[in-house]
């Protein structure tokens, strides 16, 4: 009777259902739309952008958004629309790469710690806890302090900074799976380590990690843009949004859109990934739906 409460069985959708579920919630629709738009803009920047994003004086300086230059021009007469498009490419690159770093390293740590247990688990998870208490910002900042400012280093820094979080999440998700009877049943059937980890643990942890990684992309984008804003990330002439935002400060009186547009772009992108992540969570875990 105790488990009768679970009679709304946890359902695990197949792929096509997942997309339909994502599109079933307004959150999913908006999130997916924003992210697709972003990816589209980034991939087709070469075709969509009317100008070279770093080419100066393609128009007059400080031109207001209008027909000729959709989003106006900046202090050097560069086309803002083109810069935003190419910026999307950088933003995606930053988000995806750094999350990939955090995810692969973090997941490996989490899976191994949960599966192996014992002293290895203690060492791995305790060091993760220590790093976690440093917070991502401090880790990222320390990495940049050591490596020096550049976009590549910012990506590495943000990637490293995210590891503890991914490791912890993966670890606790793996522990839950590992303690389920099906796992013991598979062990009892004589399965080896590789099969247990790769065929059972990993696929069952993956949905959680996909949710976390989607939300993580937004965190990573924010962190990297923050570093660039401080001058510790992307260097000119890269049209990185955080850097553009920071450089536009001086022209606030003259050309407020130079600051508004990149800021809005970051906010929308982050919103898109946040919504998508939330929608993923809801789609993958029905019990979360009512949360």
């Amino acid at each position, binding site marked *: 009777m105790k488990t009768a409460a679970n009679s709304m069985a946890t359902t695990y959708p197949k792929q096509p259902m997942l997309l339909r579920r994502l599109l079933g919630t307004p959150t999913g629709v908006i999130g997916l739309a924003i992210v697709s738009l972003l990816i589209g803009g980034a991939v087709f920047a070469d075709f969509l952008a009317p100008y070279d994003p770093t080419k100066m004086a393609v128009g007059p300086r400080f031109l207001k958004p209008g027909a000729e230059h959709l989003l106006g021009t900046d202090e050097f007469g560069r086309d803002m629309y083109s810069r935003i498009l190419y910026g999307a490419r950088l933003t995606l690159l930053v988000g995806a790469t750094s999350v990939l770093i955090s995810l692969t390293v973090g997941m490996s740590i989490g899976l191994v710690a949960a599966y192996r247990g014992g002293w290895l688990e203690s060492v791995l998870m*305790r*060091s993760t*806890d*220590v790093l976690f*208490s*440093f*917070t*991502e*910002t*401090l880790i990222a*900042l*320390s990495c*940049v*302090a*050591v*490596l*020096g*400012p550049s976009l590549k280093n910012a990506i590495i820094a943000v990637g490293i900074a995210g590891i503890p979080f991914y490791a912890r999440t993966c670890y606790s998700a793996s522990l839950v799976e590992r303690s389920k009877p099906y796992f013991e049943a598979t062990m009892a059937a004589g399965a080896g380590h590789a099969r247990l980890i790769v065929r059972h643990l990993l696929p069952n942890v993956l949905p959680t990690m996909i949710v976390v990684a989607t939300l993580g992309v*937004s965190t990573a984008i*924010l962190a990297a*843009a*923050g570093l660039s*804003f*401080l*001058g*510790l990330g992307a260097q000119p002439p890269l049209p990185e949004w*955080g850097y553009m*935002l*920071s450089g536009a*400060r001086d022209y*606030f009186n003259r050309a*407020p859109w130079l*600051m508004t547009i990149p*800021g809005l772009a*970051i*906010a*929308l992108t*982050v*919103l898109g990934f*946040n*919504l998508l992540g*939330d929608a993923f969570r809801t789609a993958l875990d029905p019990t979360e739906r*009512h*949360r």
Partner: protein
Amino acid sequence: MLRFIVGKVAMGALTVFVTTILVTLLIHLVPGDPVQIMYAQSQGSTPEQIEAVRRNLGLDQPIYIQYFQYIERLSQGDLGHTIRGGQPVLDVILQRLPNTLLLAVAAMIVAIVIGLPLGFLAAYHRNTYIDTALMGIAIAGISIPHFWLGLLLLFFFAVQLGWLPVSGSGLANLVLPAFTLGLSNAAIFARLTRSSMIDVLEQDFVQTALAKGLPRTLVLRRHVLRVGMIPLITMMGLQFAFMMGGAIVVENIFSWNGVGRMAVEAIFQRDYPIIQGFILTFAVVVVFVSIALDALYAVMDPRIRRGS
């Protein structure tokens, strides 16, 4: 409870210990010769002078000796001297740390005062349009980069309207940075509060309380809020650490004279002793705050307070 606290303190000590190691290593991970960088501003330094500096800093010693030297100096409250200006790092940090703490605490208050009621409201009205609207606002709030929000607030309230001063470290100066940092965290707080409260609302003891005939408001206040607050307390420790991290950016925008602004300047100046001091200070503060909050947690939760 003692066991619980001792455990937390030990974990904190471990964190600080690891930090000291990382901080010692930091200077060796830097590409290039740190001594040259340190001595860069002096005219025509000779190789002998560079060597002398290296010796003074103990950089000619094996790394473990350097570590012990670092710890020895640390125990005397000596964090070294800044490269630019030769100021004692401890002084430089201590003069600014209260500002950062003030900012973080103020932002925390903003986050709690705004986030907690909203999260509670959303939890109470869960799965209604009120909940959807509130959580929509929260997710938008999380998505707005605080450096952007900060600039917009700065330009609007301080630059355009001239309502608030832009320099100094008084209460009026605190308003904008505290709101900038507090608002985005209020959104996070609202979400945390909501899920914590929903967890509690679904607990059997809430049903028990209602079944006893207690008025709904009393059940919410005494049973739901009180229990729901407990996990939030530990999350507050994490939030505080995030605030300290967020302060780095916000301090730079608002010229708030805290350790975050100092750290960024130090990175540009390659002032490694300051960076080392900053990392250590940050870790110590975060550890202290989380131990304090864990203690509070232990006191609030009788399962730990009176646990064996």
